[in-house]
């Protein structure tokens, strides 16, 4: 069994949806014409390689709680230190350096908006930096998975 081929098939087929049933991996295998053990071994290998973040639901931000995109303008010599401080919060799920005066961008999620504001206040007190707080107003397109294109 070619794991690369199987992983491509799994990605193409089940990024956008997977069966919601007691034995989903068996069901996925039957769709692809292989067996459950192969599917599970392949997913395990993808997980080990880091290409698979997880399997399961992606929560709809507006219904699952509150979220915001926040940014700091961090002096270059403090970037790693501030980034580490930001990443410590379980509420932070993406934290990227970007080429801009605002050079640290992160997504904060929590059960409600006051929770988000408490985290931002703490970060501002801790770092002495004032965050940009940019909650989503309208979604014109949401992330429905990743277009892999033709080339591997």
């Amino acid at each position, binding site marked *: 069994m070619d794991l690369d081929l199987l992983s491509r098939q799994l990605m193409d087929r089940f990024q956008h949806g997977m069966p919601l049933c007691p034995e989903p991996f068996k069901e996925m295998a039957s769709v692809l014409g292989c067996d459950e053990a192969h599917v599970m071994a392949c997913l395990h290998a993808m997980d080990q390689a880091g290409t*698979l973040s997880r399997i399961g639901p*992606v*929560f709809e931000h507006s219904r699952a709680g509150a979220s915001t995109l926040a940014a700091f303008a961090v002096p270059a010599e403090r970037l790693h230190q501030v980034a580490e401080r930001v990443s410590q919060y379980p509420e932070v799920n993406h*934290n*990227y350096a970007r080429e801009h005066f605002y050079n640290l961008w992160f*997504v904060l999620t*929590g059960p*409600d908006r006051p929770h988000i504001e408490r985290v931002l206040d703490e970060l501002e007190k801790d770092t002495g930096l004032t965050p940009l*707080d940019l909650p989503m107003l309208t979604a014109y397109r949401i992330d429905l998975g990743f277009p892999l294109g033709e080339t591997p």
Partner: protein
Amino acid sequence: MKTGLTPRQALALRRHLEGGLPLVSRPYQALADRIDADEDQVLGQMRQWHAQGLFRRVGLVLNHRALGFTANAMLVLDVPDALIDEVGQRLGRSPDINLCYQRPRRLPQWRYNLFCMVHGRQRDPVERRIKALLEEHLLSDLPHQLLFSTHAFKQCGARFAAASTGAPHHG
């Protein structure tokens, strides 16, 4: 629909789901064991949440950086308020764009109100695609900037459920 899960069990289930399904033959049974419930109750709750729109999708969540999509650009535009919906909808339909959101301006620090994510394997083609896209939609004259990511400090699934025992918030 009555699912039988208590609010506390439902909250615990959500927290487990945020970390992903366990990679075992019967993942919902495994989750049910962790929250002292039945597989049927867990699947029933999952279907109910799905029907209520709590999930965008249920499936494989990929790490695009590990897959080689390391050129990750955030295109931000300053769109006149009267045009934002039209421009957002047009750009949101483009296959090159993964995400397209309106966010508030924060003047004077931040003037941009439309955010688009574009991913690719290399920076140059991503820049060219964005340039072509703006030209195609006659948006090249709008103030805009391209913010490429240079490092991912953290990338994981969102955690919405509070760590403490609060009531789940379904918006």
